[in-house]
């Protein structure tokens, strides 16, 4: 079963929930994988000691133009929908702007003079870390300045396979990377704060998940700090509150040191367990 942990806005406690759920399940003997899909700023590994078992680059194809064969006909430029090919036929100049290229292959398909070959450029890395015998963390990490983390995220999710419980620590926002991550999940947990910014972002996430036909539940983090608007919204939308984590300096302080709250405050483990059980009962299959 795949459970995505997401939040419209970053910094609401998505990583806190992902790492603590992972830890709790590990303590209870489950086979579980945590996939850090926040590829721009992956952070989950800070909280665990693991042994690197596998690491690979995720590449994208970029065209290389052989200027000897090129007739400067301009067809590749016309086919490229991302303005990644610059051409000036009169002065016999043609250039690939690699930063703009999405690797779609349209230019290669366009060229009838065999002037285009392709090379690989690296977008980022997927790294797998064994944490215990039955648990592991897979991290997606893009290189600085890459236009989209999607292919690196997809590669990390694929690497996770289908066995056991898979927790997807999702990218923030509701754009493409978020959609690609939650699209693979059986259930989505949205983590939010009871503030006006939190509510505004939550509404956007809920609307997006609705159009995707995904079931979700909410964890309210820093409960008690803010106002009650979020509760009336959830009530009206009939979305369950799975857990409330109070605003508490002890929790914040453990988190700030890279410590797992459920380890130092084990009273949180039953909360995470019963949350998981309620999700599985309602929405999951029991084949793990």
């Amino acid at each position, binding site marked *: 079963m795949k459970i995505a942990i997401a939040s419209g806005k970053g910094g609401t406690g998505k990583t806190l929930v992902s790492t603590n759920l992972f830890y709790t399940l590990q303590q209870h003997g489950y086979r579980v994988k945590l996939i850090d899909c926040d590829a721009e700023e992956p952070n989950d590994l800070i909280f665990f000691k693991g042994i690197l078992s596998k690491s690979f680059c995720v590449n994208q194809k970029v065209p290389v133009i052989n200027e000897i064969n090129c007739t400067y006909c301009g067809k590749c430029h016309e086919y490229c929908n991302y303005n990644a090919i610059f051409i000036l036929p009169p002065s016999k100049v043609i250039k690939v702007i690699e930063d703009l290229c*999405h690797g779609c292959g349209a230019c290669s398909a366009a060229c009838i003079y065999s002037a285009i070959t392709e090379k690989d450029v690296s977008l980022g890395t997927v790294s797998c870390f064994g944490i215990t015998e039955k648990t592991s963390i897979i991290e997606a990490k893009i290189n600085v300045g890459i236009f989209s983390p999607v292919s690196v995220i997809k590669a990390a999710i694929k690497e996770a396979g289908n066995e056991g419980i898979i927790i997807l620590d999702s990218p923030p926002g509701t754009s493409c990377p978020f*959609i690609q991550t939650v699209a693979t999940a059986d259930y989505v947990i949205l983590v939010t704060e009871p503030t006006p*910014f939190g509510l*505004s972002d939550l509404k956007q996430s809920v609307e997006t998940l609705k159009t995707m036909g995904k079931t979700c539940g909410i964890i309210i983090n820093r409960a008690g700090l803010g106002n009650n608007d979020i509760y009336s919204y959830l009530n009206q939308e009939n979305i369950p509150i799975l857990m409330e984590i109070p605003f508490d300096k002890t929790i914040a302080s453990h988190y700030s040191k890279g410590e797992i709250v459920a380890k130092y405050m084990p009273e949180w483990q039953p909360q995470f367990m019963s949350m998981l059980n309620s999700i599985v009962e309602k929405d999951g299959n029991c084949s793990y």
Partner: protein
Amino acid sequence: MEIAVISGKGGTGKSSISAAFATLSEKVVLADCDVDAANLHILFNPSHDEELVYASGHKATINYNLCLNCGLCSNYCRFDAISFQNNKVAISETSCDGCFLCSRVCPSKAISMIRNDKSRMYSGSFRNGKMVYGRLAPGEENSGKLVSIVREKAKQIAAQSSINTIILDGPPGIGCAVISTITGVDHVLIVTEPTISGMHDLQRTVEITAKFNLKTWVLINKYDLNFEMTKQIEVYCNDLGIKTIGKLLFNPQVVEAMINCKSIVEWAPTSDVAEEIRAAYGMIVCNK
């Protein structure tokens, strides 16, 4: 002068600080470049003087009356967006990158490309100047492009209304949206928190500002959460020649201000947080 406020991860209080900067004294143009989760309009409720449709890309759709089910399109698609479902080719909207290749190779012209035109950009006035903000429709990418348009508009408005200062509230992460926000600005303020993940993200963020050779400042929010980590961040920044221009205590008045649709300098002008932000802003503005 353009000042960009960013933070490796979301939720560090970046938007609250941008809002405070925007209401300190002189009139400003405030551009919300966090197009994935624009929040500042909630505080400032700007007028809607102008609305612009932003077309972020295209999606392919098949006209089954023309389709021969030959599968050629699916062989060409590099984004795994076309597959056979119940023996019929089908396009997954979430995976389609909008490259046009399938529509070009289809022998019976059965594929057409539909423009994504649900994203918007707005501009208007708020109580301390002008405001520009974008709204990316769920699931769309290319937010870097929308950020560039938002910035362009902000510059144009600044010139028209003789406003000298532009404040950019940036998106989280290190991807193309962040790069579009900071390229060519006069100052970058990185807001961070004294947590291990905050430190981790700060390092990734500093990597980019260094790459683009930008005048960078750091502000530590909620520094009383972890004094030791605060010290580490200060030392790290100092070693790189980056000045820590402010340290804010955790203060619940910041959330109160948000709930009352005010910035902290409007809500509690004499609070420690407001004073510290005022001093930090003074330091940025005085440094040419």
